[in-house]
């Protein structure tokens, strides 16, 4: 029971001059999925989005929506709609006229248009805003007008370009939940493009990480976070402590690795790794203590270099005696600390071998 994907990209490339902004990208997006394209600025994700919407034509490759080849189909005849990064709400039209625009262009009768506009506005929680003008709305409200305007056409897929980048933090969190809710309510596929990994991790069912026009890894958020496939993905999603190492010996279920500054470590793992490797450990998996840790953990002694306080958590930067720099994230769990940590204090950092990630490049 695997229904056909709603979107299929086969070896799609787009070149500008000699440079490939999108380089032989192939992927499939399932129906009703909340999919995210994640990557740093300039990685080609926006270009890919514009290829889907029809504002660019691929240099090579095929794009299929619901089995239909989109080659040569102009943007106004594609069954996808886009919410632009600047929202692009028409400034000279009222909210109602904006939302009705797509229906008006299709020639829908007045009465039905009005009814559907009212429904669409209610769905994005802007009921009653019909008469307002864009300049009277806040950024978040304008975004919702753009959403209503796109969704009212019942497209097969909704494309969102950096939907949360213009919002302040509080609004951003609200909107994240709002978008997930909307998707469920409307029941169509959402594809968002973003450089903010928090956005992608919190909203998407699956994420594709893009770098330099290519997709490096495509997986569900948790898998992406806990099992990054390569160093670039590991480093981009969340922060990562990375150490250089060399495989010494491999046995059935265990590896022995020599890590600079940490010495020899034994890890669970398969026998395929060899040669130069990167050992990675997430900062929140690193434990900080004044006493030496118990056995079975990978550990090192050092001094606290710097503490960055974030209210709910602190990032502690430790310089080990072996010369490594390790970041440790800890939640600030009690309101009043009896003996708070201080810079310059000696300490132990430790973590479980199973929490390590082994990366080959």
């Amino acid at each position, binding site marked *: 029971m695997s229904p056909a994907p709603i979107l299929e990209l086969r070896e799609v490339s787009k070149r500008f001059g000699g440079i490939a902004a999108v380089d032989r990208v192939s992927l499939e997006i399932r129906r009703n999925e909340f999919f995210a394209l994640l990557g740093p600025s300039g990685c080609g994700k926006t270009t890919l989005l514009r290829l889907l*919407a029809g504002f660019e034509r691929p240099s090579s490759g095929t794009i299929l929506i619901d089995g239909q080849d989109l080659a040569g189909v*102009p943007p106004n005849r594609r069954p996808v709609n886009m919410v632009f990064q*600047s929202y*692009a709400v028409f400034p000279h039209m009222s909210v109602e006229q904006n939302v009705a625009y797509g229906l008006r262009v299709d020639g829908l009768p007045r009465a039905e248009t009005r009814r559907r506009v009212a429904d669409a506005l209610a769905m994005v929680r802007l009921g009653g805003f019909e008469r307002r003008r864009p300049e009277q709305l806040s950024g978040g409200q*304008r975004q919702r007008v753009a959403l209503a305007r*796109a969704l009212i056409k019942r497209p097969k897929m909704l494309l969102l370009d950096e939907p949360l980048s213009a919002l302040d933090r509080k609004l951003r969190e609200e909107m994240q939940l709002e978008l997930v809710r909307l998707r469920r309510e409307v029941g169509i596929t959402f594809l968002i493009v973003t450089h903010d990994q928090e956005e992608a991790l919190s909203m998407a069912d699956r994420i594709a990480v893009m770098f330099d026009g290519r997709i490096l890894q495509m997986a569900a958020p948790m898998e992406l976070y806990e099992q990054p496939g390569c160093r670039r993905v590991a480093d981009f999603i969340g922060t990562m402590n990375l150490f250089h190492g060399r495989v010494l010996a491999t046995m059935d279920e265990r590896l022995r690795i020599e890590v600079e500054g940490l010495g020899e470590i034994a890890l669970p793992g398969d026998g395929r790794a060899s040669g130069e490797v990167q050992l990675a450990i997430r900062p929140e998996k690193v434990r900080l203590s004044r006493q030496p840790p118990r056995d079975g953990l990978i550990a090192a002694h050092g001094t606290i270099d710097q503490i960055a306080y974030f209210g709910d958590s602190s990032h502690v930067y430790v310089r080990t005696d072996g010369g490594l720099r390790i970041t440790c994230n800890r939640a600030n769990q009690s309101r009043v600390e009896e003996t708070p940590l201080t810079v310059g204090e000696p300490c132990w950092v430790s973590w479980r071998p199973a929490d390590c990630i082994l990366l080959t490049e």
Partner: protein
Amino acid sequence: MSEPAGPLDYDRRLWLRAWLAATFVFLYAPIVILIAFSFNDSRRNIVWRGFTLDYYARAWNDTSLIEAFTNSIVIALLATAISTTIGALLALALWRFRFPGKAAVEGALALPIVIPEICMGVALMAFFSRIGWPTGLPWPLNLGAIVAGHVAFCFPFVAIVVRARMAGFDRALEEASKDLGAGEWQTLRYITLPYMRPGLVAGALLAMTLSLDDFVITFFTSGPDTLTFPVKVYSMVRFGATPTVNAASTVLILVTVLLTVIAVRLQRPERTIVEGPRA
């Protein structure tokens, strides 16, 4: 005047203010005098003798003057209509498209603005004569040559104004329109044109004033069968200054000032947001 002047408050400096005032006197006094003396009850136009509207009556009764005035207005209206259309279209082409030879078009567009008017005037005169432009056509067709000349030097100005306006247009609005299903011409009509409107109005008013104020091009493209206001007044002036000339001039000044005021009024800053939201 309550705050002490800062070192950079140049506008508060006395000599600068005096200079500004003197310049305004220099600029306006001759015109004011000209207008004032259109009401002067004296043929020799030097000393004020009394208020009269006589010369306005004489101007009104001078059929050739009226005909010239009407012709110039009609020319201005026609030239404005054509210039605005052509100028706006060309501005859109330059704003929207890349094409080979674009730099050449932009260069050619700037030429009518920079070359001395007399060169353009004589060129048009020679051209119309050479290609045998029909003369003796019924009114208003006989104004065709003059209108064509006016359009030629007006429409580049319209193109500049419209292009400046389009520079602030968020292309995402056009893309959004197409994304929602509108075709090229629908997008142009519903989205691009409304944005362009202030530029169109400004350009049209600019074209109108340029046309009304023109002397040189009109001088060279008018024929014996087309009487235009600048040429008529020129011949009156050569005969000697009379208050009738003042009266006629005053009327034209009023028309031009009226247009300028309308232009300024219609230039209210756009209250709507056309850039993306950043609030």
